[in-house]
């Protein structure tokens, strides 16, 4: 306890939480888990009412989380809640211990808070679904898993949560499994994540070989024993794992498809919480990261490219959720820019604000879809501002927040990341980030305008109306958070959140960072605002007066470039060609090898036996004279052997 945890400049003490509210921290993942099981078991008896259990569990979890957070805020330290052993074999020990520190608390609040809101929202949104209780059960399972991920004090327990969120995600994406492509999307998400998991597992192997433990604190404390090559490999492996979970190039492909799930799920899992797990992981291991500057450079570039790439794709999408999905990928890219340039706290800050505004935008989209009888094409919308005033208003806040217009939350977090990138000497990353920011403003404006402004383009028979209170209430709460969250948490570079998180992230020393005067930021901030406004204005001007009913001309970006963007750079197709077609070719080849070659040898041995038997059997001619010949021949051979060879 007296050791300096984390090896950070601002050290936390390590405390074993044995009493008080922190001792009850084990309840945080357990309550939703119990909720999950209880709902499943109670469904038969209680029917749709069993969903109440789930909401109760979420609320209770949020309550406990709040209490824990309050405790940590009051006495900042790293708390370990000891729990039983999970696996212990031959020097490999893993316990279920919980790790609670500042980073955990931030994540806890985001997850449980947004989670609770989405539980509530879902009451209205999922109303009438045939598997209503099961949906809530899955939500609870997700919460439990995500909380295990956040609280695990050990890479393996973290991995446990990591995988279980994948499972929940799988279950929820494929919630409407009757739709074949939804089921495929679920599977795609799981499999893609598995690829990352391999990297995660190998990373754990390397970690264990190196450190002799998978305990997070021990790793962070002893990070400096890493050789630089090992550190480089290790960081990249963790990044590969994070790239899968957080939808970065090249493993982002599952996230847009994941929009097959119910919209609140998209909001919760595929925008606010789960997909940020990769960010959490890398920030958690920041003291490892800083040992491998080259790896961080790669991370930053992955983030930047993903941000730009996804933003470009979003420009030509016309599905209300797909745009948001690519936007999420893009925003996650920003977070990884933060991680890559060493702005760990900024990344977390952006994670938080993103949870607010992206959750908000998704929920709003859900609200719109709810009103539009599950239509998702933004060209079939328009002019909803009157029909759905609350949704419109809250969406507007979300739109401004993501576009980076001050004083909304997104502005602060995104700007701080880009500024850090610039300050740390990542000029290229900064430029790409700015371009991505302009694009973000552009496509979000397009999204907003096409959905809410202009004249209605929806077909006959659709009668949009505002969603019920259970849905609008979360919208409003999130809108409020999006509006003031940034200002409240970290208005300037060294705000409260920044200071709060200081003990748990590694300081940047070695990245060519030369502290520059505050005047640099003074230049950069207006630049960011100009970029955001430029994006919005481009969108507004290009959309004005355009015939949006004509598919041929309604898009601004047309021609070959447009087609490439519309088809998402053909990445899915390329992957299909390489992995699906190639894989099935290989599979067929092995199948042939199995049946023809390996089994063929066996069966062939049988056939040869039978054939040989047939030939040999031919000697048995039935003619006694031939038998005599054989007899005499045998006699001569034996005689010859004995008399000549064996003399």
């Amino acid at each position, binding site marked *: 306890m007296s050791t300096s945890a984390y090896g950070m400049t601002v050290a936390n003490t390590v405390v074993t939480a044995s009493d008080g509210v922190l001792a009850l921290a084990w309840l945080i993942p357990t309550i939703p888990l119990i909720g999950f099981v209880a709902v499943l078991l109670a469904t038969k008896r209680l029917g749709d009412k069993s969903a109440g259990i789930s909401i109760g569990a979420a609320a209770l979890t949020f309550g406990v989380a709040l209490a824990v957070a309050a405790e940590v805020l009051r006495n900042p330290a790293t708390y370990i809640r000891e729990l039983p052993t999970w696996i212990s074999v*031959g020097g490999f020990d893993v316990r279920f211990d919980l790790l609670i520190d500042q980073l955990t608390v931030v994540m806890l609040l985001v997850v449980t808070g947004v989670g609770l809101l989405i539980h509530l929202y879902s009451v209205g949104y999922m109303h009438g679904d045939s598997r209503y209780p099961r949906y809530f059960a899955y939500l609870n399972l997700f919460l439990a898993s995500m909380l295990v991920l956040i609280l695990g004090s050990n890479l393996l327990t973290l991995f446990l949560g990591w995988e279980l969120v994948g499972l929940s995600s799988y279950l929820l994406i494929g919630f409407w499994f*009757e739709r074949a492509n939804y089921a495929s999307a679920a599977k795609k998400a799981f499999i893609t994540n598995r690829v990352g998991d391999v990297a995660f597992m190998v990373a754990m192997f390397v970690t264990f070989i190196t450190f002799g433990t998978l305990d997070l604190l021990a790793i962070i404390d002893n990070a400096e024993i890493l*050789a630089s090559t090992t550190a480089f490999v290790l960081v990249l492996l963790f990044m590969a794992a994070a790239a899968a979970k957080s939808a970065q190039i090249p493993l982002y492909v599952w996230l847009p498809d994941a929009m097959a799930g119910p919209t609140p799920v998209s909001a919760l899992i595929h925008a606010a919480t789960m997909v940020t797990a990769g960010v959490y992981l890398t920030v958690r291991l920041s003291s490892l990261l800083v040992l491998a500057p080259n790896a961080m450079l790669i991370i930053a570039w992955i983030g930047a490219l993903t941000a730009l790439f996804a933003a470009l794709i979003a420009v030509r999408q016309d599905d209300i959720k797909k745009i948001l999905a690519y936007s999420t990928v893009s925003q996650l890219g920003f977070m990884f820019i933060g991680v890559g340039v060493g702005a760990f706290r900024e990344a977390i800050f952006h994670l938080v604000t993103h949870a607010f505004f992206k959750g908000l935008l998704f929920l709003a989209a859900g609200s719109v879809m709810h009103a539009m009888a599950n239509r998702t094409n933004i060209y079939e919308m328009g002019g909803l501002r009157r029909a759905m005033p609350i949704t419109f208003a809250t969406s507007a806040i979300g739109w401004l927040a993501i576009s980076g217009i001050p004083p909304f939350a997104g502005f602060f977090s995104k700007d701080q990341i880009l500024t850090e990138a610039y300050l740390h000497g990542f000029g290229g990353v900064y430029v790409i980030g700015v371009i991505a920011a302009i694009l973000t403003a552009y496509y979000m404006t397009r999204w907003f305008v096409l959905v809410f402004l202009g004249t209605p383009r929806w077909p006959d028979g659709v009668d949009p109306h505002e969603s019920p209170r259970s849905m609008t209430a979360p919208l409003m709460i999130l809108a409020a958070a999006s509006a003031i969250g940034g200002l409240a948490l970290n208005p300037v570079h060294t705000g409260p959140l920044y200071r709060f998180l200081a003990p748990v992230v590694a300081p940047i020393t070695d990245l060519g960072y030369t502290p520059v005067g505050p005047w640099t930021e003074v230049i950069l901030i207006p630049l960011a605002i100009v970029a955001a406004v430029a994006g919005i204005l481009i969108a507004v001007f290009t959309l004005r007066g355009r015939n949006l009913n004509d598919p041929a001309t309604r898009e601004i970006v047309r021609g070959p470039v447009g087609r490439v963007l519309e088809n998402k750079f053909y990445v899915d197709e390329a992957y299909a060609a390489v992995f699906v077609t190639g894989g099935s070719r290989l599979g067929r080849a*092995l199948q042939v090898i*199995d049946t023809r070659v390996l089994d063929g040898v*066996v069966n062939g041995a049988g056939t040869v036996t039978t054939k040989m038997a047939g030939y040999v059997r031919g000697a048995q001619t039935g003619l006694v004279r031939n038998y005599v010949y054989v007899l005499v021949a045998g006699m001569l051979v034996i005689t010859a052997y004995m008399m000549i060879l064996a003399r």
Partner: protein
Amino acid sequence: MGMITVTILLPVIGAVLLAVVRSLTVKQVQTVAFGATVAAFVASLVLLSQFDRTNPNLQLTEAANWIPAVNAQIAFAVDGISLALILLTTFLTPLVLLASTSSITDRFRGYAAAFLLLEAAVIAVFAATDILLFAVVFELTIVPMYLIIGIWGGANRRYAAVKFFLYTLAGGLAMLVAIVYLYTKAGSFAYADMLQLDLTLSEQRWLFFAFLAAFAVKIPIWPVHTWLPDAHTEAPTGGSVFLAGVLLKLGAFGVLRYLLPLFADATRLYAPWLVGFAVVGILYGAIVALMQSDVKKLVAYSSVSHMGFVVLGTFALNTTATSASVVQMVNHGLSTGALFLLIGFLYERRHTRQIAAFGGLGAAVPVLAGFWLIVSLSSLALPGLNGFVGEFPILMGTFASYPTAAVLASFGAVLAALYLLWAYQRIFHGPLVSDENRATPDMTRREIGIITPLVALIIAIGIYPSPLFNLVEPSVERVLIETGVGETMTLGGGAR
């Protein structure tokens, strides 16, 4: 009479009862068979209670003269490894019999008797400390299984049964020759005496391969696995469950008990090769599983892949990986057994195992789908379920010795997810179009009762595997010391 003998004899008594008393009604036959297996399970629990976990050696020894002329004894003893596998056996058999009561309508008496004999033989394999006795019961397991596949199996059962028989017999006979050789050196068949033998490396080499022939076929190690898909596909549900759950473990058990300690030098010499074959098996089995249209065949190939992990861990030769291998044996028994049970339930409803015939069943049979998913997840090593706690330490331990192999094998996990979830998707997801699918009834109370213990264990081991690890680890360490890698490779520490 010691508890091991009791555990072995109880099923035998049941079988004899079934064979001798001809006037039993079907109900009575079921009761006798089930009762005998449950009694054996209870007996094995008593065995567990008598077992001293801290003692790594073979214990609870029982011995009686068998063939004094050749110094052969009927000698039994258990260590943690064998006890774990005995428990797995006695746990699975009642469930298997219970599951068969509805599917096996023809000559259930013979079926039950065959199973009881099989159970007894398998327990004897795990408990034998006389190597001749081991060989005898090892071979003997073939016969009832042959009958079970051959009589109660599917359309192509004869081919599958004969293939199973000849494949395994061929391996077993090679081992028999080696055993006789060992006997001529040691002058007795006692395992303890065999351990004292001082064999030259060239002797060890061929003996190693002779033993390996028997075990590799049984496990099965690629490329001698081709009997398995056929056997699994054609076997009745109970047969498949038992085959996957228990019989495949005989080989892996044999490797641990005999191959490693007796031919330590050869083992260390050839371990890299076997690791290589294991990796090939893992990936190959998984890829071929992907291509299957028959769900049983798919699971059969998945067994090839999963047993590859067991082999990998065993020949990684460090406590972590090798102990986890034993745990993985149990896990594979549970999850693949459960999967076969579920396939059997589905088959009873639909009389087909072609994946293409299904689709959208998740809506029609949600409970079955749920269980299936859990079991599939266990099989694809989702953390929190049992498959993971076996597979991960195996890979971890292997990484310490063979990093490349471990990394390659890790991709087996991706592939496992792919084939299992793809199969799940094709069976349970998608629109519920055909009338047969729509009319498929969900699981009955009895079926839920059968699968629940398995799933409970799957989850329990996934969350709290320590008792299992504690049971096997001392024994595994003993084996590794005998194999000459006793200075247990300390994982971690020095950076590579």
